[in-house]
Structure formats: C-alpha cells, structure tokens
C-alpha cells in the first residue's frame, strides 16, 4: 500500500534522511522507532507532502505521492495526527473534527462524527468546548479523531503517547488497535518502543536518518541491540 524508496530529505543544506526505504501492506499496523532527531517526523511529513524529498519515491497504491500537493495526498486517503497534536486551539472540538473532513464535498455525514465519538466518548462531552482548553490526552484524542474524519485508508500517527500518563497511553494505544482492526492501515511513530512493539506487527528502527533495523515486532522485542538502545536494557 505504502512504498518508500531511497527517500532523502534535506532542510536547507542539511540532510535529515539519508535514503530510507520501507513498505507497508494494506491492513498492517507498522511502527517506526527511533530516538529524538532520528527523522521519524520528517518521514511522515514527506508522505503527507509537507516537506519535499530531495530524491527518492513515495508511492501509495502504486501512485506517486511525492510530487502531489498536500491536499491531494489527503484526498487519496492518507491522513496524519501530527507530533504535538496541533489541534486548532481557538476552535471548538466539533469544528476541529469537521476540519478533518474538509476534503469531502458537501455536508459532513453524521455517521463520521458518531464513529469518532464512539471511539472517544470524552470528545462528545466536550464537543462545544475550545480545543485549546482540553487536557493533553483529550487533545491527542481529538488529533486522532480529526484524522479519522476523512475516512483514511492510511493513518499516520506521530508520537501519540508524548507527554501522556501511562494509563492514558494504554487507552489510546488500545483505540489505535481498534482503528486498525476496523480496516485502517496504521503507521505509528513512537519513542515509547516497548508499547509500540506490543501493538504493531512489524517495526522499523531509524537512527540519525538511516534505517538500521526492520523486523517483526516479536523479534525486535527480543533483539539485544533494540533492548539496549530502546527498551532500557
């Protein structure tokens, strides 16, 4: 479904991704792990069309994404809940969700809102509240719910656990699992390696702009190198 080949991205003159290749099949939940600055966010932003690759290809169901403007990428069914959530603070929860369905023509079908509210009942309670006044966990729910409003085929999640209490992380990861089970392919970027590997079928490990490992999650969990560097020994 998603195929990245030899992707290089530079900011100014400085290269952040030195040619990475990865593949995600339809229905998979794949995680990309790596320390701060490894290039995880850059990878997702390149897929979403917010940064332009220097070289390399990004294909989605065979079609090149890397030359499409970002709104065309969303229209193809690829959405993202970005790092730091980036909800529209001075807008209500419901307006944020409606923005998630922006690429749809015509009015937003109520079933889309209903589906998000079923996944995150807290959002329904807060639907008229300004997004900026939500707690961190609620904002994360909103960011994910908003990304679901376009009915994506591929959902990109950038560090959804960032800054959240462990209990909340578990609940959000549980929801991500359910979203994946409902048929949405998921790429989950995480620094929380243990939790992410328990959730995902496969994982890639990025290190300063290069892919250093790729394997099934069970193997990565037992890989001494991974244990050392990302699972705290």
């Amino acid at each position: 479904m998603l195929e990245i080949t030899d992707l290089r991205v530079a900011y100014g003159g400085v290269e952040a991704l030195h040619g990475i290749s990865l593949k995600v099949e339809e229905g998979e939940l794949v995680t990309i792990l790596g320390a701060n600055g490894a290039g995880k966010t850059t990878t997702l932003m390149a897929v979403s069309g917010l940064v332009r690759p220097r070289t390399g290809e990004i294909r989605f169901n065979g079609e090149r994404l890397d030359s499409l403007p970002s709104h065309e990428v969303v229209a193809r069914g690829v959405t993202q809940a970005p790092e730091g959530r980036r909800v529209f603070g001075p807008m209500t929860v419901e307006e944020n969700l409606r923005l998630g369905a922006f690429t749809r023509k015509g009015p937003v079908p109520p079933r889309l809102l209903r589906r998000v509210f079923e996944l995150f009942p807290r959002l329904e309670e807060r639907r008229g509240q300004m997004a900026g006044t939500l707690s961190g966990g609620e904002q994360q729910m909103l960011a994910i719910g908003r990304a679901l409003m376009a009915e994506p085929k591929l959902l990109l999640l950038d560090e959804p656990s960032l800054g959240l209490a462990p209990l909340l992380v578990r609940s959000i990861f549980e929801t991500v699992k359910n979203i994946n089970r409902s048929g949405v392919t998921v790429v989950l970027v995480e620094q929380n390696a243990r939790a992410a590997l328990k959730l995902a079928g496969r994982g890639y490990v990025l290190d300063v702009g290069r892919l250093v490992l790729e394997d099934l999650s069970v193997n990565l969990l037992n890989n001494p190198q991974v244990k050392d560097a990302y699972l705290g020994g």
Partner: protein
Amino acid sequence: MDFFIQQFCNGLTTGGIYALIALGYTMVYGVMKLINFAHGELFTLGAFLGYLLLVTLGLAGAVGPALGLALSIVTVSGLVAAAGHLLERVAYRPLRNSDRLAAVVSALGASIFLQNAIMIVWGSQYRAYSARLLPAVSLDVLGQPIPLIRILVFAAAAALMLLLWLFINRTRTGLAIRAAAIDQGAARLMGIDVSRVIAVVFVIGPALGGLAGLMAGLLYGQINFNMGQLYGLKAFTAAIIGGIGNIQGAMIGGLLLGLLESLGAAYVSVAWKDAITFVVLIMILVVRPTGLLPERVAEKL
C-alpha cells in the same frame, strides 16, 4: 451634546473606512504572517477608479446616483480585487518559500511601484470628487442633521463587515481561512489547499480596501496618489489595536481609532488628529503588542 453626536458620527464613519482597510492587513497577516505594504496603494487605486467612473465618465449623471453608485461599487471592488490577485501572483507567490525579508522587500517594492503607477496615470495633483454626485441632504440622527453620504458610507461599511463575518464564520472557505491562520501546517494536513486560501484572502482584502478608497473619495471629496500612506498606516494601527490577524479585532480597532481621532480632534486639538494615531500605535506596540482585546476574547475570535 449636539457637538458630541456630530463628532461621534464622524468618528464612526471614518472608523468604518479604517476598519475596511484594516481587514485586508489582518487577513493577509493571518494566513501569511506578512504585512502587505502595498495594501494602502490598493485603497488609493479604489479611490481613483471611483473617480474615473463617477467623475471622468460621469456615471452617476448618466444613469442616476443610485445605479451609478451601485455600478461603481461592483466595478471598483472587482478591479481592485483583480489587482490584489495579480499582486499576490507576481510579488508574493514566487517568494513563498524564501525567507521573510525577501517578501518584506518585495512588499515595499510593490507599494512603491503601485504608487508611482497611479501617479503616472492620474498625475500628482489632488483630484476632486464632485460634490454633486449625491443629493446634498441630511438625515436626522438623535436630533442632529447628519449628511446622507456619511450615513451611506457607514451603512455600507457595516454591511460589508457583516458579510465578511458571515463568510468567515459560516462557510467552508471561511473555515479554511481561520484554520490556515491558526496553524498553516495543520491546515494542510486537513487537506486544505493553503495556496487557494491565500489567493482568496488576496481577493477579499483588496476588494474591501478598494471600496474603502471609493468611500473616502465620496466622503472627503479629494484624492491624491499618496493618500494610501496615511490611511494605510492608520488602518494598520487599527489592525494592531484589534490584534493583528484577528478579523473581528480589525473591525473593532478601526471603529475605535476613528472615534478616538474624531473626539480627540474635537476636544483636545485638531492639530493632534493624526498624531493621536501614532501615539496609539507606538504605545500598543510597546505595552501590549498582541492588541487591546482581552486575552480570552481574542482567543474566541
């Protein structure tokens, strides 16, 4: 009291004009984080196009004042919107990915170019809108005779602001504009075509600014190729008062500044009329650069 009512009405009318211009600054700043220095010249262009239609071509005399005014409003807003669109394509879009300074220099260059172009076409002397374009009647407001033109200008400004408010808050494109102003990257992740949003903003802002130019011509009777500098600076101050980037803030800021100026000139000193604006601008930039609206109100708007 009578004197106060007169000055208050003057202030509201002038303030309405400032507000219309300020909306152009604030909308562009909202989505691009750029001060469109050429915006004052679009206002001037509107004033001169109105002059061309109403005075040079004698439109009001030919088809009657009401239809003549209506045709001028449509033509001026359409042509100035087209000029704004062209400005964005030529002066700003090619620099979208360059650093901020390049865009600022380009904005200043566009301002100088437009001002000189207007001077070449219409000359550097003052031009007069004829006083007989509209019937010279006054209406009674709280026992005070207020000239019809003042009332019309204020009503038109208020109607335009209401239309804009509805557009921004009730339409899909308005939602996209608000989202792009809050977080352009996040807006793009929602599938919003930010280039289109910028193009829309560069049509609406100039249309409103151009109409403000027409109104200023009708109201004060005299126009000049560099009138956009002073009005531009005042409208910019109005945008700052309301918090730059904040649409409702620009409306409130414009009306406040108009009132302040008019009442200040009446009760303090006429000589201070223009200075008031700059004192306000400097004080706000120093003390409260986010604008005068309370934080919580600003968040909601």
